[in-house]
């Protein structure tokens, strides 16, 4: 240690010693000072840089200034202008300027001086260097658990801290049970564990909790905090996010099945794009795709007048939450200017913006069967086979061969004028460059599709060209979407027909289309005859939009598609004055029937050829199907019955490649002329700085997050897990690993965990297991006074921390000990209970049950505007952003709730009633039972005495017999209620 003199605090005249480490570390000792006190004006953001000096890089700090001096002259503190200025006696000259309130302490000045004397070496930010096992040469103990303890012990030794002994078994089972499952141990578990004298009893307990279904419920909820989980969109009317709860169930299953974390990331960011998705263990439906609800958990504005602004807010939220969740970076800070602290230029923000702008919101079938892709493939094969067989069967007479059919007029007199633009024309064979999302519209238009009479024996005709959601059959989900275009005409026209189908003009990806402003942007297609639908869009000129054609419809912003619903369109145009049917662009038609049939067989027909074919067919009676085809036709019918969809959730789908301009100072009305290529933080992740994919580019984003060289992904998740096990992360700011985040207390340990997490196949359970088996996790909370004094915040874990339970654990524990817990898993949420204080628009018509039907809190509805009052009082996070770390507050509302809330009183009553069903012989055995349930321990003599006194106090003049008292529900209710209010019940130790 090196000692120098310094003064701390302006009024403290007593000079005292300031110690600085012998080896000054740039990341740990110097950078925090520069970040906190210098970067705002001398950091990476040029827009706020003063005196042309930047101190975030060596080249900047050592460059010659206007004065001729350099801020830092390596090895020469005396010549370094920086040191002169920070210690200047003239307050006008002193840095940082007085009004910043950022004066440097004597210790900080000493550190800077030492660092400059040592050569002023800049090192990259610790979190941006991939984790490495620093002690490879020494080697770690074989088991991860021992390695973790060894790394912790190193620090304890360094700090001269004596670790506490092992906690008693009662404490351990309660700790383990809450940490792994969020519930107190049952009385059986408690008794079993206490009686288990085997040496591996604890280890077996760990395994049984990790294997319990409640484990997933607990850990899914942790993740839900990170991704702003909610089931409604908040804002004015709090519309439901369709199928949001399926994401909750997906998470629970994922944690319980221990899905590798890399797969988990892939599914949430690109679950719709996976070639071989995972399937639900029982229903054999696509499981991976549920992950993409991650994107749609945000809020939704009711009728925003400026949809472009609204879109930028939506995307900003997704960027913010995505980068915090998976990378613990605050990329959203770079929306208006280069990040002031981290190496994240504004271009990185808009590189990511393009990826998300090219991602479209869409309903997605919730229960897509495992075989759907194969089934559709099979259907396509059958269709081709039928064409082949049919066509081969048609007899072409010689005189027919060259006979041209009468050409029908395709409005050839109307020229494609500048006032009309064709947005899509489906009367030909292809889908005009539109995207056929889902399966309903198939890969082509219906042009030439054989239409069979219901008896399957005869061919009615070959179909005209149109895009149809009945390409295979009705009841199948799919959406046809145009490329993005800029609105530059007064109207959009679509010729359509259908049954309860919908056509929407989606402007700036805005989804909550409805009255009053946007009602006209969505039209239902109710008529089975062709109709011309006109959308009046003149006032939205300049906005980006696309058209979407849906077989179903939206009710209260929930997508519904019934078996009979369908939609078909012939073409879509935009025009200024008058609807003009676009002329068909007909390539030179072939009137050679052999050629026509050949074209037809390979889906290469044009409309005229199909007309000629139809004439030919009716003329020649070629309408009977050969016997060998009947089976194929019937089989096709059966096949398409297997891919019916009926349940949907609010998800995303890939749109087209979009590169975004920079919004100057974050203003969506002020755009840069240059477009930013798409990328995912190339400077930090080392990934591709210009994604070329024709789709959104989300897959490339996932690749960047999961690239072996990504320094953050594994560390961030390992740290989140540590945070939940010990109440604080190795990096305390779990959502921010950037320069403003906290430094890791145990950097080597974090690196070790990050590497072994990956080495063990990204298994979250294995990581948790290795940590809860450590001595550190099993330590007692009590420490001797020296430890308390030396490490009051318990950074070094010489003892296990005492902390308050989370809101859900408090509520669930109350249900559990009362005997009122319904452990049923999964399914739609239990309606939230509405108190008289929960008012406002969008309030549900009916309140949910007070006790939430006894279900675990994770199953209670999360309505943004009507959050469960009990959970909220105990710091349930407002779901607008990532909250990897919850607040723990201490407010009177919490005491008032435990003292007076009907839920709490009710649970006490249920518990009393439940207790009466046990044949406890006397007060003591009952009190013992209560203690075991509530606190996982037995009462001591004093507590027994107090309990007896409390219970007896209501037995005035001992009027009641022991049995009468034992059967007196009211007495025990009050006692249980009192114990719910004892802090031990809501604290974990």
């Amino acid at each position: 240690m090196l000692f120098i003199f310094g003064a701390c605090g302006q009024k403290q005249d007593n000079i005292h010693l300031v110690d600085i480490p012998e080896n000054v570390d740039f990341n740990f000792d110097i950078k925090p000072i520069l970040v906190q006190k210098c970067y705002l004006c001398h950091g990476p953001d040029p827009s706020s840089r003063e005196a042309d000096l930047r101190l975030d890089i060596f080249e900047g700090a050592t460059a010659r200034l206007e004065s001729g001096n350099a801020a830092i002259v390596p090895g020469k503190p005396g010549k370094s202008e920086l040191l002169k200025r920070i210690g200047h006696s003239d307050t006008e000259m002193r840095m940082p300027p007085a009004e910043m309130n950022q004066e440097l302490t004597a210790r900080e000045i000493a550190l800077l001086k030492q660092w400059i004397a040592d050569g002023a070496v800049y090192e990259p930010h610790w979190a941006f260097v991939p984790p490495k096992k620093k002690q490879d040469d020494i080697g770690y103990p074989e088991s991860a658990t021992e390695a973790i303890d060894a790394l912790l012990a190193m620090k304890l030794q360094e700090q001269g801290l004596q670790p506490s002994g092992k906690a008693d078994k009662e404490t351990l089972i309660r700790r383990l049970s809450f940490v792994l499952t969020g519930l107190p141990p049952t009385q059986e578990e408690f008794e079993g564990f206490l009686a288990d004298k085997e040496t591996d009893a604890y280890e077996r307990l760990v395994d049984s909790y990790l294997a319990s279904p409640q484990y997933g419920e607990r850990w899914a909820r942790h993740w839900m905090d990170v991704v702003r989980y909610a089931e409604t969109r908040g804002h004015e009317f709090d519309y439901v996010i369709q199928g949001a709860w399926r994401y909750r169930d997906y998470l629970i299953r994922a944690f319980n099945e221990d899905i590798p974390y890399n797969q988990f990331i892939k599914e949430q960011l690109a679950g719709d794009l996976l070639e071989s998705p995972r399937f639900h263990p029982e229903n054999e439906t696509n499981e991976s795709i549920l992950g993409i609800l991650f994107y749609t958990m945000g809020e939704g504005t009711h009728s925003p007048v400026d949809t472009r602004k609204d879109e930028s807010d939506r995307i900003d939220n997704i960027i913010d939450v995505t980068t915090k969740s998976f990378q613990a970076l605050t990329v959203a800070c770079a929306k208006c200017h280069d990040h002031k602290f981290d190496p994240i230029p504004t271009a990185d923000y808009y590189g990511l913006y393009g990826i998300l702008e090219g991602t479209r919101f869409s309903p997605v079938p919730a229960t897509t069967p495992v075989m759907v892709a194969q089934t559709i493939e099979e259907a396509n094969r059958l269709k081709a086979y039928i064409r082949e067989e049919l066509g081969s069967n048609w007899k072409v007479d010689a005189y027919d061969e060259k006979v041209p059919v009468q050409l029908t007029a395709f409005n050839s007199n109307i020229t494609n004028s500048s006032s009309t633009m064709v947005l899509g024309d489906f009367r030909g064979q292809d889908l005009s460059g539109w995207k056929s999302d889902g399966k309903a519209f198939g890969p082509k238009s219906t042009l030439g599709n054989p239409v069979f009479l219901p008896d399957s024996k005869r061919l009615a005709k070959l179909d005209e060209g149109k895009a149809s959601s009945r390409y295979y059959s009705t009841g199948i989900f799919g959406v046809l979407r145009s490329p993005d275009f800029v609105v530059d005409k007064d109207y959009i026209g679509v010729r359509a027909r259908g049954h309860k189908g919908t056509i929407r003009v989606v402007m700036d990806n805005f989804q909550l289309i409805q009255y009053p402003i946007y009602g006209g942007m969505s039209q239902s297609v109710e008529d089975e005859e062709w109709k011309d639908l006109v959308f009046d869009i003149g006032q939205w000129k300049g906005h980006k939009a696309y058209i979407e054609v849906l077989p179903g419809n939206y009710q209260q912003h929930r997508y519904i598609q019934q078996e009979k619903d369908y939609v078909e369109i012939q073409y879509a145009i935009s025009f200024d004055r008058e609807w003009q049917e676009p002329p068909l662009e007909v390539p030179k038609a072939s009137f050679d029937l052999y050629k026509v049939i050949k074209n037809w067989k390979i889906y290469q027909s044009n409309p005229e050829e199909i007309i000629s074919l139809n004439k030919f067919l009716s003329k020649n009676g070629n309408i009977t199907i050969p016997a060998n085809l009947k089976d194929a036709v019937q089989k096709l019918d059966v096949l398409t019955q297997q891919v019916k969809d009926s349940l949907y959730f609010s998800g995303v789908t890939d749109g087209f490649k979009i590169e975004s301009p920079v919004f100057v100072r974050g203003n969506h009305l002020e755009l840069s002329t240059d477009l930013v290529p798409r990328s995912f933080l190339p400077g930090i992740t080392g990934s591709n700085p210009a994604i070329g994919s024709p789709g959104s580019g989300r897959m490339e984003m996932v690749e960047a997050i999961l690239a072996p060289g990504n320094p953050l992904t594994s560390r961030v998740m390992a740290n989140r897990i540590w945070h939940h096990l010990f109440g604080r992360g190795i990096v305390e700011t779990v959502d921010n690993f950037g320069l403003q985040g906290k430094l890791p207390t145990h950097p080597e340990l974090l690196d070790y965990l990050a590497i072994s997490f990956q080495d063990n196949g990204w298994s979250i359970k294995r990581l948790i297991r290795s940590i809860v088996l450590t001595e550190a996790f099993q330590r007692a909370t009590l420490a001797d006074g020296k430890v308390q004094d030396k490490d009051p915040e318990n950074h070094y874990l010489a003892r296990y921390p005492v902390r308050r339970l989370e809101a859900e654990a408090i509520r669930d524990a109350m249900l559990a000990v009362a005997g009122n817990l319904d452990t049923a898993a999964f399914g739609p949420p239990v309606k939230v209970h509405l108190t008289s204080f929960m008012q406002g628009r969008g309030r549900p018509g009916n309140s949910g049950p007070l006790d939430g039907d006894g279900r675990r809190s994770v199953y209670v509805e999360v309505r943004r505007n009507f959050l469960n009052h009990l959970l909220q009082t105990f710091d349930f996070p407002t779901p607008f952003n990532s909250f990897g770390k919850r607040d723990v507050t201490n407010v009177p509302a919490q005491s008032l709730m435990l003292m007076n809330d009907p839920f709490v009183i009710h649970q006490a009553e249920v518990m009393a009633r439940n207790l009466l069903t046990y044949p406890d012989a006397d007060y003591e055995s009952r009190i013992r039972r209560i203690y075991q349930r509530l606190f996982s321990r037995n009462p001591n003599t004093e507590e027994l005495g107090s309990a007896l006194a409390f219970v007896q106090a209501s037995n005035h003049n001992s009027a009641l017999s022991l049995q009468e008292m034992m059967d007196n529900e009211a007495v025990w209710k009050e006692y249980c209620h009192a114990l719910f209010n004892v802090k031990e019940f809501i604290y974990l130790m």
Partner: protein
Amino acid sequence: MSDRLNRPMGRREMLEYCKCGFGSLAFMGMLGGMVSACKPSLKQPSPGQILDRLSQTPHFIPKAKNVIFLYMDGGVSQVDSFDPKPQLAKENGQDPKFKVDATQFNNNGKILMSPWKFKNYGECGMPVSELFPHIATCVDDMALIRSMVSNFPEHTNANYFLHTGSGLQGRPSMGAWITYGLGSENSNLPGYVVLNGGLIPPGGVDNFKNGFLPADFQASMMKVGDEPVANINPYAAENTSQRDKLDFIQKMDQGRLGHLGSPSDVEAAISNYELAYKMQSSVPELTEFKAESEATKKLYGLFDEDPNTRNYGAQCLMARRLVERGVRFVELTCPMVGGSVDRWDQHSNLKDGHERNAHAVDQPIAGLLKDLKSRGLLEETLVVWSGEFGRTPFAQGSDGRDHNPSAFSMWMAGAGVKGGTIFGQTDEYGYRVVENPVSIHDLHATILHLLGVDHNHLTYHFGGRDIRLTDVHGHVVKAILT
């Protein structure tokens, strides 16, 4: 600490406070990361440690100690209340001669003159329409801003913006910021109270929440009725008194504390029960109007025929009682006037709707101003009257007005406010601001300024940034200050 309220505080003093005092949460927030440099443990205060938030010390001499925010939900029409526009009468029924922005309903009609006459009042001669005959008698205490602008034409965005400085959901409300910055002066009552007169504004209770600030700073909702505050009524046990039960709980807790190593947050949670217990008795005392004279009640309109006036009058009286007891920030929501004329949002039937809403609040508000003044409370209380935006000078349909964020009127009265002032100017139609525009951020900066808080320095570190109520904007509107 209270003597510090009476004199300005130097920077050095503040630094010293941070380094050596550590009584003040607000300074920890205002000074951001500096705290970590001062505290040996390198740890910012955890929310659980926020125990004592009484009377935090302001940046400079405050004019106001408390704020009463009279929120005019839905948006009062400026041209029908405080910003007379004779031109509208001249062009009544004609198409607007100016460019019309997209509106919420986009059903924009002809120019619509005000159905109400204006008259000049007070020594200052401020014109007020017939809608507010009572408030008109207080104009010499009021500073009127006619040049308010908002960024949002939708209720919910505009509500969040007015309340939290951001159009998005989930940000801390100004009441939360203010109690975070200044604390409460009454240990038995919350620092930030919303008196719910019946209508929670669009956007819901998120208008009043703490956002990313610790939950200590969220609004406590109070309403008229048997249970004015959630869970405030002691649970009546069948065979034991609450006091006995609390004593028993206390005994159990103390007996166990040693086993836990007496962590400070557990100790704090224990002592929290006593505060909650005291609140149970101080709230009923607060909501009980027995001690108020008949004259006072009459002043507030408590005997009015209109139940909405009586309702709002009771809220106003309660607001006075709250600030009297040191509650820092009180917001009143609008009464449920009923039917299609709820709040000020008259997309149709302007005349009927505005009249009924005005009648509900006019006398109670004037009563509040006069009562505060006569008790000397107006000198230390800032009364703020505002909606989230204004309304269009042209009709929606034939007899309504749509939302207009481009110009609206609001006023302040009381502590530090120059009475009788009119600030800012709109065009001849009252459609857009033409002089001295005042943004919502400016309004926030001004309110904070009057409370002795520099809006640039009231920050909280969240998501990688030191965030302010005023974001990166805000200028104090000095012209309306004494």
